[in-house]
């Protein structure tokens, strides 16, 4: 299948400042691509480049197999939803939705039919004669979506569309967007700084930092095998534990030695056969550390650690400890007996461990 969006060696600079460096991404029809990263990483600029709102400095960008150099936004067959919704303040909801068709000279009957379709789909029929100023945040969000849907474009672009909503509404709208994607089977590019949004929505995630792509992959690839320390730290909440360790090989596999402020170093053995340098950063997600006895398997090893803090969070309880000079969080079951200041036996799932080179931050396994 030909990619719906194909970006090759894209560069973007403002004067001498390079905003995007050598971006290569392509997505297939029906894909939901999420661009995620901290603010200032260039993700919104990349989206604007895809929309044609910003000229690119180098490389190529094609949509639906057609090169987009010198193609204006209106001719790219895209629709876009903005962070501030960007609804036209003096127009009614209906006019907001039909403005694009009106500009393109679509006949009134078609305009009306499409308007009704979209209004029904998004359940905004009662709002059609209101102005944006009279709508709540969630309603504005729907109208903005309606304005995009009515275009029936090759590619939908979303620029942090949920970041102005309160937490509850954000979760609701997130699942609506997901449903919409599934129902329409449309191709979407979605920018967010919220890694949970990225994980829940995407079929493909691009993690960016400083204008450079850090990793491209499915949500599970990104989550389970982060390509570097930045991705490991950025994706997931609470963040992946990154514990300095020394390695030593023996017959059973790799022995990982982790210093502790009090008492003997902690020793874990990874039985997977791999070549590791002497110093590594060991990455382990909080949910891969359990209370001893609550996780079993060949790869699980138990060790006693001093609990420093216990944070019940309802469904889970988070316990923190210090290992190798780093703070380590474990995600335990809600009814744990862990007490701050007391030792607790923890179970480490070594099959889930990621190794990183401490200096370059690159993944080793």
């Amino acid at each position, binding site marked *: 299948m030909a990619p719906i969006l194909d970006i090759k060696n894209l560069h973007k600079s403002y004067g001498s400042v390079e905003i995007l460096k050598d971006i290569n991404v392509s997505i297939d029809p029906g894909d939901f691509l999420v661009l995620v990263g901290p603010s200032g990483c260039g993700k919104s600029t990349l989206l604007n480049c895809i929309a044609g709102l910003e000229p690119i400095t180098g490389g190529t960008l094609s949509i639906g197999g057609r090169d987009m150099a010198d193609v204006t*936004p209106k001719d790219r067959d*895209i629709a876009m939803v*903005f962070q501030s919704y960007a609804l*036209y303040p003096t*127009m009614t909801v209906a006019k907001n939705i039909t403005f694009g068709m009106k500009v393109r000279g679509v006949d009134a009957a078609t305009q009306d039919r499409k308007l009704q379709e979209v209004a029904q789909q998004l359940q905004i029929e009662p709002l059609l004669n209101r102005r944006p100023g009279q709508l709540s945040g969630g309603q504005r969000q729907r109208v903005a979506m309606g*304005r995009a849907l009515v275009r029936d474009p090759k590619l939908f672009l979303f620029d942090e569309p949920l970041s102005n909503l309160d937490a509850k509404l954000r979760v609701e709208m997130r699942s609506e967007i997901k449903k919409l994607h599934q129902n329409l089977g449309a191709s979407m590019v979605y920018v967010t700084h919220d890694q949970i949004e990225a994980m829940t929505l995407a079929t493909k995630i691009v993690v960016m930092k400083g204008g450079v792509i850090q990793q491209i992959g499915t949500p599970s690839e990104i989550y389970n095998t982060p390509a570097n320390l930045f991705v490991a730290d950025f994706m997931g909440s609470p963040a992946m534990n990154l514990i300095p360790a020394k390695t030593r090989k023996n017959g059973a596999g790799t022995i990982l030695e982790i210093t502790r402020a009090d008492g003997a170093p902690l020793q874990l053995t990874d039985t997977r056969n791999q070549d590791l340098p002497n110093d590594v950063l060991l990455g382990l997600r909080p949910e891969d550390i359990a209370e001893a006895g609550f996780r079993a398997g060949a790869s699980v090893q138990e060790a006693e650690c001093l609990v420093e803090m216990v944070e019940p969070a309802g469904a889970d309880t988070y316990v923190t400890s210090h290992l190798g000079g780093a703070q380590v969080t474990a995600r335990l079951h809600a009814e744990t007996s862990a007490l701050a200041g007391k030792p607790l036996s923890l179970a480490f799932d070594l099959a889930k461990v990621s190794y990183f080179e401490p200096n370059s931050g690159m993944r080793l396994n």
Partner: protein
Amino acid sequence: MIDLSMSRPAETHPRGIAWGRLALRFSLYLFLGLFALYYLMPLFVMVTTSLKSLEEIRTGSLISLPREVTFEAWRTAWSGACTGIQCEGLKPYFWNSILIAVPGVAISTLLGALNGYVIAQWRFRGSNLIFSLMLFGCFIPFQVVLLPMARVLGEMGLAGSISGLIFVHVIYGLGFTTLFFRNYYVTIPNELVKAAKVDGAGFVRIFWSIFLPLSLPIIVVTVIWQFTQIWNDFLFGVSFSQAGTQPVTVALNNIVNSTTGVKEYNVDMAAAIIAALPTLLVYVVAGKYFIRGLTAGSVKG
């Protein structure tokens, strides 16, 4: 916002505080009232003087009410007072001012709106520099352009003409009108332009369908500001007009300072009020916007 007399908690000396409070409030209102008189007095004197006969002015007191109200001075001021050799009153000059102000306001406001729209929403390399240069132009003392402008108007064949004055007011009003619109449009998120671009609208369409309908408040502010500026202008009027094309301020000054005949103070005052009436009217009707313009014109940014 805060009350002068709220400085101490009221519970301590209820009675003493109550009296002190009352005295404070009283002096506050007295002070404000006295100043209201200071500001109103000249207007009052102008109006009463304009309604008196010359005889009464000579014998009566400055602030006394007219014993006998006569509109003779108003009639003279409007259609008979002498500005130098001509004695047609203010009427033709009042009309001149309208002929200058209306197109002057309209053109400079329209250009200001377009400039502000470009500078705020369609930035390009150098657009900020252009804005700075225009802003700077607001501050020059106009004396520095009087001489060359007089020559250029002459070469353009506009010397001493109404069109010439319109031209001058448009040019030197541009800085402020651009500033007003730019500061207004810069508060509108640029995403609106982006959304409209994706919707297929272009530069003109976006301005016409999206920005212009949003602009009523700033248009009112700008129109009032420009109207007041142009109507009240004297320097350009006296420098670039000739007999017959003078604006009302210049004519007023000529009436007041005309040395021929008896000094008719009542006519002077009536003429002054007539000249002030349009801007006063604007101020009374749309004072809120007038003040907004004043403050926007002084608090840049």
